[in-house]
Every structure is written in C-alpha cells, then in structure tokens.
C-alpha cells in the first residue's frame, strides 16, 4: 500500500495529528450527530417508559416494551404483514417481469426494439404522483376485466411490477454477457427458456442484487399508491399506517416511534446486507449519465 499523502483527497487532509486533523474529527462528530441523532431518538423513544414530544432523548431511559405492546393493540403487526406481503410479492413480480423483458431487449434482435425501449423510458416519466387520480379509478375498476383491486394487496403489487429503471439496468447488464457463451450453449442444445434460466440469470447475479435493493427501497417507500389503493385504513402499509398512530389521541409519540422503528428495521437489514451493491448501483448510474 502506498503512503497516504495530502494528494489523496481533494481538500488535502493531512494524516498526521495536527490542527487540520483535530478540526476534521470535530466536523465528523458534528456530521455524525446531525445524521444519526434522529435515528437514535426513534430507538430511544420506542423503548422509553414515558415519551411525550417534549421529552425526546438519545438513549432510552427506564426502558420498556410498553410502546410496542400498545402499537400491537393498535394493529401494527397487521400493517407490518401488509407491508411484507406487498414488498415480497411486488419485488418478486417486478424482478420476474424485468428479467424476461431485459432478456428479450438485450439478447434478441427483433423489429420494434426501439419502440419498446421508448415505451419503457416513457413509463419512467409516469410515476404514481403524475397519474394518481386516474390510477385510483383504474384500481377501482380494471379496464377490460372490471375487477376492483381496492382494498387488496394486489392494488399495490401489480402497479409496482413494472419499473422502467429495473428493466433498463438489467438490459444494460445483459448486453455485456459474451455471445460465445450463448452460442456454445446453443450447440449443446440448450433451449430458449433454459438459456435464460441456466446461462444468463446466474451470470446476472450482480445486477439482480442491485435491482433487488433498489426495488425493495422503491416499494417500501411507496406512500401515495397504498393510500389510494386502500379501501379503509386496515389495508394500509406500515409506513402509511404511521399517520393513523400519529392522529390517534389515545397513544403518545412513544407508540408512533415504536411503529417507526418496526418500519425502519427491514430497510436497515437490506441496507446493511447489500450496501456494496447499493453504492455500486448509485455511482454507476450517476457516472454513466
């Protein structure tokens, strides 16, 4: 390893102890506080025995599980289950739909290729917010089928199945798989769907990781869609249901923070497990433009 020098960083931070280094440590402490403190207050508030909004602390005082117990009585685990079903089903469907489409776009030549690509690009300009009002009409009565998806988890799972972003990153990745591998497999008599399943998919593991974490974050972050797809508050996802806890006058912010903590844990787990994929995905997207 080379010696670290002042040319390692844009600001030229010195590795040696001195005024510069002390200043840097102080600034890092401030930054850590600013970004970590709100999360500590979630944790502390969720476990605090008495929490009102004026008594937010950084660590739990007199810890208790009462907040979780009350949140449980208010139906938090039902909301959590809604969220898990939606994120699990939505992600599975989104990955399946995207893998199939990306395989066709990346590995096969056909007329209309450009048009299909443009259509998927266009869907990225149609996020839930922009089409919320008519989408809620569609969810209430599906075109051609006449079924209502309102009040069912499918009202959220089906609309998140198509995400242009996932199709695009998968297509970009699958284009890079060498043609020779596929040709060799074809000589061995591997059929079309087996080609996708046995050859292309295992080679696409890195992009599947990126797609999984971005898809999870996209679905877990949904707010407007579960709100308009719900028939009544019991259909809400956990993140939307936090507003129910907030406006419930009989419980304090401690219960709300217990709910917030439960809503935070899955994101935290996914982030810690897959942060390398996440960071790689973000930087690749930005530098490519």
């Amino acid at each position, binding site marked *: 390893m080379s010696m670290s020098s002042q040319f390692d960083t844009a600001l030229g931070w010195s590795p040696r102890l001195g005024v510069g280094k002390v200043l840097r440590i102080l600034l890092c402490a401030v930054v850590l506080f600013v970004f970590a403190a709100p999360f500590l207050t979630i944790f502390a508030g969720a476990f605090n025995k008495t929490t009102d909004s004026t008594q937010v602390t950084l660590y739990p005082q007199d810890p208790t599980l009462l907040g979780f117990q009350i949140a449980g009585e208010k139906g938090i685990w039902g909301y959590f289950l809604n969220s898990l079903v939606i994120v699990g089903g939505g992600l599975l469907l989104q990955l399946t739909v995207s893998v199939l489409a990306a395989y066709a776009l990346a590995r096969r030549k056909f007329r209309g290729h450009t048009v299909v690509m443009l259509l998927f690009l266009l869907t990225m300009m149609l996020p839930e917010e*922009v089409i919320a009002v008519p989408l809620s009409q569609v969810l209430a009565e599906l075109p051609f089928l006449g079924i209502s998806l309102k009040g069912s988890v499918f009202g959220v799972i089906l609309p998140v199945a*198509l995400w242009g972003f996932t199709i695009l990153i998968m297509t970009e990745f699958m284009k890079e798989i060498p043609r020779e591998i596929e040709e060799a497999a074809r000589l061995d008599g591997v059929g079309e769907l087996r080609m996708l399943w046995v050859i292309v998919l295992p080679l696409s593991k890195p992009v599947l990781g990126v797609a999984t974490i971005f898809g999870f974050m996209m679905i877990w972050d949904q707010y407007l869609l579960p709100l308009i797809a719900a028939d009544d508050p019991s259909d809400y996802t956990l993140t939307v249901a936090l507003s129910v806890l907030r406006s419930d006058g009989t419980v304090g912010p401690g219960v709300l923070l217990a709910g917030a903590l439960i809503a935070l844990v899955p994101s935290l787990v996914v982030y810690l497990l897959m942060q390398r994929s996440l960071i790689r995905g973000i930087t690749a997207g930005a530098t490519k433009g």
Partner: protein
Amino acid sequence: MTTVPLTRRARPLVAARRGMLSGPGWLPWVLLLPALLFALMFKFIPMVEGLRMSLFKVQPFLGDQWVGLENYRTVLTDSRFRSALGHTLLLGIGQTVGALVLGFLLALLLEGQTRSLWVLRTAIFLPVVTAVAVIGEVWRILYFPTETGFVNSIAGWFGLGPFGFLNDPDQALVSVMVVGVWTAAPYNMVIILAGLAGIDRTLYEAAAVDGVSRWQRIRYIVLPGLRPAISVLLTLAAIRSLRIFTEVFVLTGGGPAGSTEVWMTRVFSLGFQRNDLGVASAASTLLLLVTVVLTLGMRLLTRQKESGS
C-alpha cells in the same frame, strides 16, 4: 474507448458481436408481454384516462360532461394552485441546491480510504434508505414547537429559538426544506465521492508544485472534474421535486394556512378529498407535460454533450 470509423462492410459484423442472437421471431414478444401488459394497464391507460378526465366535468352516476379546457382554466386561475406552484418551485430549488452543497461539503470532509471514514459514510447514508414517511413522522416529533422540543433544545444551547417550525406559517416551508436537504445530501455525497475518485491525483501534485492553494485546487481542478456528475444530479432533482408529495403530506399536510401547499398536495385534496376529478386531472396533466418536456430536454442535452465530446 477508441472511435475508429467503421467501414460499411465491418458494421454488420460489429452488430452481431454485440450479443444479439436471433431465435424464433415471436420469442421476444412473449418475453415482453408481461411488462407491456403492466405498462398498458397501470401506466398508459391511466395516462389516457387522465387526459380524458381533464376535459370533462367528472360526475359519478350522473355521467361526465364535456367542458373542454375549462378545467385547465380553473387550475391556472386558481390562487391556491398558483401559490402551490410557487411553493413547489421554492422547495425544489432550495432542496436541490441545499442538498448539492451539503453533499459536496460532506464528500470533501469524508473523502478517504481509512476504515473509520468508511464506517462514518455508511452511518450517515441511512436517511437515504429510510422510507420518506418514517423520516417525516420522526421530524415532526423532532420539530416540536416548544423550547423543550428536540431541535429547539439544541437551538437553545446557542441562545436561539424556540422556533415554531412546522406550526409557524413563516417557517414551515423552510423546515420542510431542511428535512429534504437532510435526506438527499448523503445520496449526493456518494455520487460526488465517485466523481472525486475519478479525478487524476497527479493533477493535485502538479498543482502543488506550482504553488496552488487549496481553494484554487477546489476551484480549478475539483469542480470542473465534477461537472458531469453535478449536472445529472441537478436535472434529476429538479424533475423529481416537481412531484414532491410524501414529505409535505406527512410533515404538514400543506398547512399551516396553506403555507406549504405544493402542486401534488393540492391535487390530492382536490382529487381524493373533494372528489373534483376533472380539475385534479387537469392539474396532473400539466405536471405530466412539464415532467415529460424537462426529461426529454435533459436527455437531448446530455446526448448532445456526449456526441460533442
């Protein structure tokens, strides 16, 4: 990458090398069918339906009544939509610029290879992966408007406040903005760090030999090197901020006294609370138009830059 001009004869060969294998002609369409069906059902039909509704007075059970561009006129002359537009733009510009500057400063501070810096970057990235609704609920509590509230008690150490934050019509928009900057800055930091890593270190050394100060190094080497990353960040954030909804809806619901009402919270209250579907659709259509124009404009610009360089 080298750009050797291709002769006519070489081109088909290269196209085949790209990995485009041909199979049965119907196969791609079978594979694309699910994606296209979902796009049709949940994107394109709603889009067309929204366009249609924007031209009608939508009345359940009574039948829709054609009103032409009347709904659009209502939106454009409605004072609440006008102030919502103002708030959307203010919030968008403030959050975008704020998150960019803070993200840049964070990147400068936390650039480096040591393990402690890596741990620190991991920790401060948390707001990005947290659901916006969770962040909103927590900041509502942190912003509690008495001097014993969390942020107010910290402000108290410096002899400031207490602030009303979300309860004060004069401070609510800025308070929402701060949450947006807090959420987005670590994301920008990651992208800017990647940009910093791409800057040639020998430039720093050469500049040092020439006696260039740190400030000049940032000004003349770092910032120009980051330009591609920053321009992408700016445009994406600008487009995204137009449809800002969840943060505002959770933090303030548009209040107090409409001081934080943005385009989408207005659409939401019209479309889902007052059931005025025609006007809400017209407002959504306008948002869609601006989004499409901006996105296409950005694509065109970046493509020109790519082919120009």
